[in-house]
């Protein structure tokens, strides 16, 4: 595998990852911008519409026709939250040209489609085509409404809203329905033009062969734009609330959900990461083995660490009558770690699990793309293996210290309406 990143313009990076084993190519363009309730919906629409059509393939039908003729090539857009930032993206993926039985130059075709989507969208007189926009907007509103369909995901996002109240990170990456409803085709177009001008941009191309065409194309197109890129802070600690805040919602569900959010001011990210593994991130973790297996208090009970906001969240699916017992045991298991109750086996298993996870990065084009984007945000480009080397140095004492630094910030409950 070969990795190479060049800055093609101020705050625009182009990385190529070349690995001969792949049968498909993946291009991801990420626009990094601030997360703000006032702009989040227009930004999302301004980028999501790009993969529906462009000035050459003016409708979803025409675009779909073109892509299916290129062996089911795919283009899509996304809006994600990364701490206090909104990451908007455009992706294109297609099979390697050597499998094209009609001899098409798939790389050139996809480069042209990408160029037209990003730099020549279906827009006139400062606004996106109204027909395409109407469909994209309905789709966004439907995505916002459908969030409740997935109860575990919904609970996690409500918990984030509560934990990050007053911070940009409280805003969801799609925005609120009432804000999205107000966005016009002109608003979305202006938002996209502003993104092109002010965002930091990271482009990552994963393929089996080196190819400079895409890099040259992006350099040429961005040279036409008068850029005024902003500086963004990629990680920011979330301040701890003075009192633990709770939020309960009643829904007609059978299984209740509880998400406990802990915050820390510790900078020892490797120790917190190991702590989360031992606490609740694997099937041999303390939460899984005790809260689920031994005590049968939850069907699932897992912890996850977000280094971006310095937060550990424990989410669980629990019967109403067991909520208080489960909460007490989740806190008790953290106390066990603080007391030093960590076995050598637990340390070893956490390390092996991490080693396994880091080593498998690179077996799919998207894992490479995500890895190198995250390292760019970290400000340090390293391989997964180099990154892993930090973990065996984490001692039990550092884990205990990390555990002691965790403070409960907030709890979100989704409660069933049934009687206990």
């Amino acid at each position, binding site marked *: 595998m070969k990795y190479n990143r060049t800055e093609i313009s101020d705050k625009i990076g182009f990385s190529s990852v070349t690995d001969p084993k792949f*049968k*498909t190519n993946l291009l991801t363009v990420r626009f990094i911008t601030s997360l703000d309730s006032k702009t989040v919906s227009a930004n999302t629409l301004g980028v999501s519409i790009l993969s529906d059509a462009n000035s050459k393939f003016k409708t979803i039908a025409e675009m779909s026709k073109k892509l*299916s*003729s290129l062996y089911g090539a795919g283009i899509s857009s996304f809006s994600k939250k990364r701490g206090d930032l909104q990451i908007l993206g455009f992706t294109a993926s297609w099979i390697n040209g050597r499998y094209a039985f009609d001899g098409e130059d798939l790389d050139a075709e996809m480069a042209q489609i990408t160029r037209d989507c990003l730099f020549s969208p279906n827009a006139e007189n400062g606004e996106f085509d109204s027909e395409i926009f109407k469909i994209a907007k309905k789709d966004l509103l439907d995505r916002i409404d459908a969030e*409740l369909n997935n109860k575990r995901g919904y609970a996690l996002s409500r918990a984030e809203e509560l934990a990050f109240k007053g911070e940009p990170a409280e805003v969801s990456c799609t925005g609120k329905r009432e804000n999205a409803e107000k966005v016009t085709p002109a608003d979305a177009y202006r938002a996209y033009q502003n993104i092109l001008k002010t965002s930091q941009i990271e482009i990552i191309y994963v393929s089996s062969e080196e190819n400079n065409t895409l890099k040259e194309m992006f350099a040429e197109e961005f040279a036409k734009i008068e850029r005024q890129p902003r500086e963004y802070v990629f990680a920011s600690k979330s301040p701890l609330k003075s009192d633990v805040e709770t939020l309960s919602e009643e829904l*007609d569900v059978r299984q209740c959900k509880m998400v406990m959010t802990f915050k820390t001011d510790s900078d020892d990210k490797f120790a917190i990461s190991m702590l989360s593994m031992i606490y609740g991130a694997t099937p041999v973790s303390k939460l899984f083995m005790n809260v689920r297996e031994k005590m049968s208090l*939850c069907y699932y009970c897992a912890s996850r660490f977000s280094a971006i906001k310095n937060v550990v969240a424990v989410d669980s699916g629990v019967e109403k009558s067991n909520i208080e017992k489960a909460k007490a045991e989740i806190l008790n298991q953290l106390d066990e770690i603080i007391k030093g109750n960590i076995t050598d086996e637990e340390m*070893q298993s956490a390390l*092996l699990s991490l080693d*396994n996870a880091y080593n498998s990065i690179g077996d799919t084009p998207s894992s490479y793309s995500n890895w190198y984007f995250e390292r760019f945000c970290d400000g340090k480009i390293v391989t997964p293996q180099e990154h892993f080397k930090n973990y065996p140095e984490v001692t039990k004492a550092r884990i205990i210290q990390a555990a002691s630094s965790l403070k409960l910030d907030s709890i979100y409950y989704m409660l069933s309406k049934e009687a206990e």
Partner: protein
Amino acid sequence: MEKNIITDKITGDKIIHAKHDSGLDIYICEMEGYSSVEALFGTKYGSVNTMFKMAQDKEYTVVPEGIAHFLEHKLFENEDCDVFELYAKTGASGNAFTSFDKTAYLFSCTKNYQESLKILLDFVQAPYFTQETVDKEQGIIGQEIQMTNDNPEWRVFFNMLRCMYHNHPVKIDIVGTIESIAQINADLLYKCYYTFYNLNNMVLSIAGNIKADEVLEICDKCLKPCEDKGLETVFPDEPESVVKSEITEKQPVGASIFNIGYKCKPESGKERLEKVMAASVAADILSDPSTEMYQKLLKEGIINSSFGTEVFTGDGYFTVIFSGESDSPDVIRDTVSDEIDRIIKEGIDEELFGRIKKSNYGGLIRELNNVEAVANLMMNSHMDGVGPYDTIEVLSKLKSSDVLDFMKNELRKDRRVMSVIERTV
């Protein structure tokens, strides 16, 4: 041990198939340049296998709903420890799943695959159930049942199957019900285990950063020879008609969702694969964003980007499903039916047919790019009685007339069911 090499003509990828002396079929795909390993040890035993006997038995045994899934949970427990604890020593990530017609135990790892493979082969061959651990599991699975009841995608799908099938056990929930799992005991679990976990009814599939010789050597050491006892599973007679055409349930969801299913005649082996390809292409033709029908529904706000299709099939069942979010699923149902009638009358657009075939071909190439997908492909195709690379060949031979015939014979209004989860919030 018989060994043969199966080569994909397009990519040149190779798979080794071995029929081990123990009775087990083994599929191995060495994937150069990859770091990870994915292994699946599966049995052709799922939630639909509720009635069975061995050649020597006179009577069929009938078991409670959800027992295959229950057995999967219990097999993860050894006499002295949990299997997760064994994997924790190698760094592998272990898991298992039960579907309608199979149960599989799997691990993925990047190092020490030999040790993890030994763990996998050993624990699946060493059942240990006691009434005490069975009782405890009833509580855990009871919670899982409650959780699946809150999952609208799960509910809309099973409601559809219940409307579609009169007798076939595909209509029962994979996890069973609180009442059915209460009937499970250690003896019943052993009975099911020794019936279905016979190596002659199982397959090992392993792909990625491995060496075939090492895999086979470990198999030689760990596999216990099994006598083929002539397993027979039986399914109740299933009429071609559906039970009822429509079902609606209200749930606290933000977006109403639907499944529109067509009940088709089931097939097996290569015929099933041919029918699956015809059905997939038919469904793609009926849901392709370039068509007038799709555009009309999209512009009127009846469908959104979640609109999609699936071909769902196994022993004794075959269904084509249209699904998505909508407040007007009845309009979609009627429009799809009208479009089927139009195509049957006017014929298939050859340009569209060609593009869809090309697009499906691209999807198959993508599948071969992924260790996990390759391991699953090898297991699934074996259980379906076809070769791992047969799909590309069947696709290349597919004619538009095959697809038209499928639409005429199988996508019938009188075998159509609509299931809806309606929002209450």
